[in-house]
């Protein structure tokens, strides 16, 4: 017969200082892990949100990022003639030629300044990105020195608000609008007219990439295959979604470091939990004897103490998640090696990260609880009862 869980709960509340301190130790460990997971989740969700499954990204063969990609106007013209590309209502193909450069602007967080992606595109480029909406102001006009900045850019850099000026390439540009891309990476970019930026950077023909919208997923497959296999194009095609998800690997060093730290901290917390549980067993020796006299088996004593340890660590895990919760939706920035520029994203403390955190805590509890529980179960009734 099992000992009711209420017994364990009551025991934990009786020794509330010890319980709280042990749980808090576990909580801090869990907090570190969940915070790192939230960071990585936030980054990958920002990238995933920026990829449309039907958009196909085409760049020169061999390049794995738009920044060092390549696309000439002639190749782009040939690409737009391919079958399978969706068309807008007025008949023009949904194909966008783009130029990616970087601008370095002063930042309060980093003395080296922050690098931002500058994306030159045409109105078709905006049609290919339905998630990108204008939040304030208006869009840039072709042929004018005007830019629209992402909302994260405007928020993180006070000198890049609406109506301000920004200096790069051959001169100053007016910020005429602020865009909102939902969770997409365009929030961290500066958008402007393709031809204006191409002439400023002397890259009239050496552009970065092309985006094509396929009519459906079958056409997308066929389109990608025909582009990649056609030697005339010397280009490689992949879905925008695949390209974006592959950038999540930028967070790998942080993830590895975070997990490494969490594991070492967990070793320490397991020993602490073990200590607490041994003390609990020692203090309740007589109770254990009494329980045995009442007819509870060794097995149920073992289970009871083990469950108590799990309960203790679960409290710690929940507390740890609670500690991290204020981080949710806090905006942070990170540079990526593929874009050499900053991407702003929000921490995402999702249910999955929290479940991993609580699970991690319970592993600590299990390791810390198994030996003390065995110790309690092995006690001889008479010895236990005689204990003061």
């Amino acid at each position, binding site marked *: 017969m099992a000992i009711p869980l209420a017994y364990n709960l009551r025991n934990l509340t009786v020794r509330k*200082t010890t319980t709280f301190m042990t749980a808090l130790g576990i909580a*801090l460990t869990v907090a570190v892990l969940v915070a790192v997971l939230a960071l990585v989740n936030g980054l990958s969700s920002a990238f995933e949100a920026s990829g449309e499954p039907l958009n196909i990204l085409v760049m020169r063969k061999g390049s794995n990022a738009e920044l060092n990609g390549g696309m000439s106007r002639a190749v782009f013209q040939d690409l737009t003639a391919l079958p399978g590309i969706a068309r807008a209502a007025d008949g023009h193909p949904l194909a966008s030629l783009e130029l990616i450069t970087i601008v370095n602007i002063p930042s309060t967080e980093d003395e080296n300044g922050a690098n931002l992606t500058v994306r030159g595109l045409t109105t078709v480029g905006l049609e290919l990105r339905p998630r990108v909406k204008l939040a304030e102001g208006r869009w840039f006009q072709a042929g004018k020195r005007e830019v629209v900045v992402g909302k994260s850019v405007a928020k993180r850099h006070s000198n890049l608000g609406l109506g301000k000026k920004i200096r790069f390439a051959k001169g100053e540009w007016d910020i005429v609008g602020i865009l909102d891309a939902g969770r997409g990476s365009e929030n961290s970019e500066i958008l402007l007219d393709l031809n204006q930026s191409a002439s400023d950077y002397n890259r009239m023909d050496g552009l970065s990439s092309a985006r094509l919208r396929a009519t459906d997923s079958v056409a997308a497959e066929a389109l990608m295959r025909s582009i990649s296999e056609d030697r005339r194009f010397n280009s490689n095609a992949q879905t925008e979604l695949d390209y974006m998800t592959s950038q999540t690997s930028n967070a790998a060093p942080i993830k590895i470091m975070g997990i490494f730290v969490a594991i070492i*901290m967990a070793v320490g917390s397991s*020993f602490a939990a073990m*200590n607490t549980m041994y003390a609990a067993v020692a203090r309740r020796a007589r109770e254990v004897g009494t329980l045995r006299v009442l007819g509870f088996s060794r097995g149920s004593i073992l289970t009871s103490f083990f469950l108590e340890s799990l309960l203790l660590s679960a409290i710690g895990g929940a507390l740890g998640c609670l500690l991290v919760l204020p981080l949710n939706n806090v905006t942070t920035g990170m540079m990526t090696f593929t874009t050499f520029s900053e991407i702003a994203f929000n921490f995402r403390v999702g249910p999955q990260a929290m479940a991993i955190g609580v699970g991690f805590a319970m592993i600590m509890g299990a390791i810390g609880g198994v030996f003390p529980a065995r110790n309690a179960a092995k006690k001889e009734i008479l010895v236990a009862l005689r204990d003061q």
Partner: protein
Amino acid sequence: MLRYVPLMLKNTLRNRRRSVLTIFSIGASLCLLGLMFALYRGLFLAPARPGQELRLVTHHKVSMTQPMPYSYAAKIRQVPGVAGVMTWQWFGGTYKDARDRNNFFARFCAEPAEFFKVHTDIDMPEDQRRAFLQLRTGAIVSDDLAERMHWKLGERIFVIGDIFPVSLELKLVGIFHDANTSETLYFNREYLRELLGPNSARADTVGAFQIQAESADAVARVAKTIDTMFENSTAPTKSESEQAFTLQFISFLGNVKMYLMVICGAVTFTILLVSANTMAMSVRERTREVGILKTLGYSPGSILFMVLGEAGVISMIGGAMGVGMAAGLTGLLRNAPSFIQQMKTLTITPDVAALCVGLAIAIGVLSSLIPAWNAARMPILVSLRSSG
């Protein structure tokens, strides 16, 4: 006070299991703290390493992805205090299959003669130096890369370009050892120019220059002179010491300083909790004994001292153990693959070790203040009556 030391040690051994568990717990935390301190020191506090202190990097002010005219090299060479100027052009590209991360290593082109002027501290046989100077398609690699790839002299290395639309067919002519370089290949800039052809706009642009200064005090002056010289040109520059330059890559990961501090804070607090918990348990168990000691004439002060001392001893042993483990772990980390150069020389220096153990003792003593104070103040009759 010293005569209490044997009693203090006896008390430590009284509940051996608890002491050992506490020591392990504190040890694990201190191990982590030691690693974090060592990392922080290595990244932000360590002086430039020999061979590195005279070297500067000059790149485009916006980012190292923006090109500068090659003609800058001649102008920089004229700056007083400059001993050598070498093109430091990132080639990138793909070796074998880019999807396998094992195929990734740094690939730069440089002028061989200048390379030896700028990298005066490398270790390389004379005949291999000559071969690199003479063979246009020659390449040299750092010894760690040669070892990992199992390359021998004469190896053919094929790299497909991405930033540059050409493919390299290189022959390995030299393997060098340099404490400041890891997993890097250098090849002849002339070879790249030849492949690009006379009409390529890229042939005469450069991503970065490495500069060797004549003396350590010239470094800052040279950097300033160069940046002023190009301030109002189409490609303004930023010159910085090689050490500062490598730190930029770390800032890609976000605010690393803050990450390290948050982790250190969490770990320190965990140690405080574990130690406080242990001492509280230990004192509670001995309430009666304290009463007896007082009856025998021990002053509250000496009891306070004994409890504090016991905590200090436990956390000191834990701290020493942690530092030992951290030293072992840094050995493993040094050999782990990493893009952060500073990881290759991560060590627990004596000052870090001393700081850790000192911090451990301080935390131990601090955490036991409340239980020790309570024990010292408890009236004799109350403590004698206790059944604990």
